[in-house]
């Protein structure tokens, strides 16, 4: 689809508006977006200006209080920490996932589907069960410590569970397939002739990779980054299970406003809207980078 000449601008000519059949075909998607994306977001936006109801819920009002509370240093600190955690997760997933995706994409047709299947098999088990399985592996009397002690590689159990490292591990484990799959689709479409041409024209492996292969697979890389970074930022279960709930992530804080003592829905909504804006900015930024390259 995209070949070496990536800087051809998108066609800007006259585009025919979709006719009635077109709208009909689009309508399920539009309805879905209206019901499950726009409506909840609008409700959240309205709630975020309201006041806390006695039993939870919201008393509608127009106050900026909730947004003022979001700007508290504690929440900003937690937001920054969440960005760092999910950023780190994204980088690790990219570094680990790219070679895997490249190998699968370039593999022999016969093996390719089998390898892809192996990436997807974990999805057949519930995410929570897989995360709890890590508790069994990482706990101080767990499988990993038991193995290491058996072979005298360590003398005392190594504290792995309930640490930030365990949280990052859990996040990487959860999101790695979301990095591999989109990159794989890009790699699969990669034209080998262009890579060979790069070598023929004197590029070494590093240059061929950085100047030809990476730019041509960049749509997959961008999709992978977005698919990992954004959900990782909001996920709180891994933090609770593997991190011991010690260090709150922004997802935990939002959850607490609805399911915790405070019953502060408007504040939770304001946090949600803030996060949504942050996502929007991140999305716009990567989109722009993409267009520039």
């Amino acid at each position: 689809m995209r070949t070496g000449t990536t800087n051809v601008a998108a066609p800007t000519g006259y585009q025919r508006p979709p006719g009635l059949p077109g709208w009909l075909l689009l309508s399920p998607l539009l309805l879905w977006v209206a019901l499950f994306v726009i409506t909840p977001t609008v409700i959240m936006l309205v709630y975020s200006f309201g006041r806390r109801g006695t039993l939870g819920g919201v008393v509608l009002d127009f106050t900026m209080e909730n947004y003022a509370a979001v700007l508290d240093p504690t929440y900003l600190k937690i937001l920054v920490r969440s960005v760092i955690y999910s950023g780190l997760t994204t980088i690790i997933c990219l570094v680990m996932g790219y070679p895997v995706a490249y190998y699968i994409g370039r593999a022999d047709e016969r093996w390719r589907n089998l390898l892809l299947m192996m990436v997807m098999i974990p999805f057949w088990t519930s995410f929570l069960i897989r995360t709890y399985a890590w508790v069994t592996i990482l706990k101080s009397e767990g499988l990993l410590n038991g193995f290491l002690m058996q072979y005298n590689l360590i003398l005392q159990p190594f504290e792995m569970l309930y640490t930030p490292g365990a949280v990052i591990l859990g996040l990487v484990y959860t999101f790695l397939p979301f990095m591999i799959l989109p990159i794989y689709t890009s790699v699969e479409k990669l034209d080998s002739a262009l890579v060979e041409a790069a070598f023929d024209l004197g590029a070494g492996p590093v240059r061929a990779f950085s100047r030809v292969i990476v730019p041509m697979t960049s749509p997959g890389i961008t999709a992978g980054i977005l698919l990992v970074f954004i959900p990782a930022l909001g996920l709180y279960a891994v933090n609770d299970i593997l991190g011991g709930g010690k260090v709150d992530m922004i997802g935990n804080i939002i959850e607490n406003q609805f399911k915790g003592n405070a019953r502060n829905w408007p504040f939770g909504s304001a946090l949600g809207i803030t996060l949504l804006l942050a996502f929007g900015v991140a999305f716009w930024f990567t989109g722009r980078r993409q267009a520039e390259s």
Partner: protein
Amino acid sequence: MKRSVVVISLLAGLVGACTQKEQPKELNLFAWSEYVPQSVIEGFQKDTGIKVNYETYASNEEMLAKLVSGATKYDLIQPSEYTIEALANEKQLKEVDWSKVPNFKNIAPEYKNMPHDPQQKFTVPWMVGTVGIVVNTEKIPAGEVKGYKDVFQDKHKGRIVVLDDPREIVTWAMSTQGISANDVTPENLDKVKPLLQQWLPLVKVYDSDSPKTALLNGDVDLGVVWSGEAALLYNEDKKFEYVLPVEGAHLFIDSLAIPANAPNPEAAYAFMNYILRPEVSKLISADFPYTNPNLEARKQLTPEQLANPASYPPGNPKLETFRDIGERAVPIDKLVTDLKAQS
């Protein structure tokens, strides 16, 4: 398409509910996860012919969120004491017709007319528990830990599990200063802040759902947990000692209550009366070893069950319960979030 199916099934449900007013066929039970044994639900269905739709929640606030949204109408909920008070204040509970729940006589007098339901109009106690300290006596000598102050010591750093519940944590700190659990004022919060600043960095795990896991796995040696969790640990291994903190413990009581808009209150009465039967209540105790408020059921428990110090604390101390503190819960949440973010 999907929506019309939903509408049709809702209508069918409504028609069903209207025509069967005399003889309820359904009970929409909304209860804590892991608190109602499957055997009790099956026994009730067999006994009464009423089908139970069982939905669960993991916190009082989650239950309130669904109840207030009104998306589903429930016949029976299982709130804790402070939530009962909040619901009653907002006129969200239906008064129980006690003539339909004759087995209520089995409840011990000390669990009747408690502060959250002073006239005993709305609730049937389910289980009662305390929040206390569990110590793994293989790691820490038995008897060494007597109160919160002994738990939160530097030597236990990284070996402590606590409930992931800001109000609980703040209450423990307040009780070391002789402040009542319900005396939540900005001044008192300021007073306990330095103490919490010392305590929280020592904690290894915050877990309200299953604090016993970290203790069983050996990742921590002591903790402040629900008594039912402590009782399960004790059943597993006698090395787990349960201590009611000397500074003052508190009691929680989970009860059955009927929402004001319940479609099948008759079914709710039937369920209340059913679980109050000693032979049924006994089954609940077997799975969830909290303090059973049903005196007749207690007579049928084994000596081992009654000897579990977490289920039936020796001396049966008189303890205070949580009251509804309304929006004073917001600064508590903020305080604990702040301190966690600092550590």
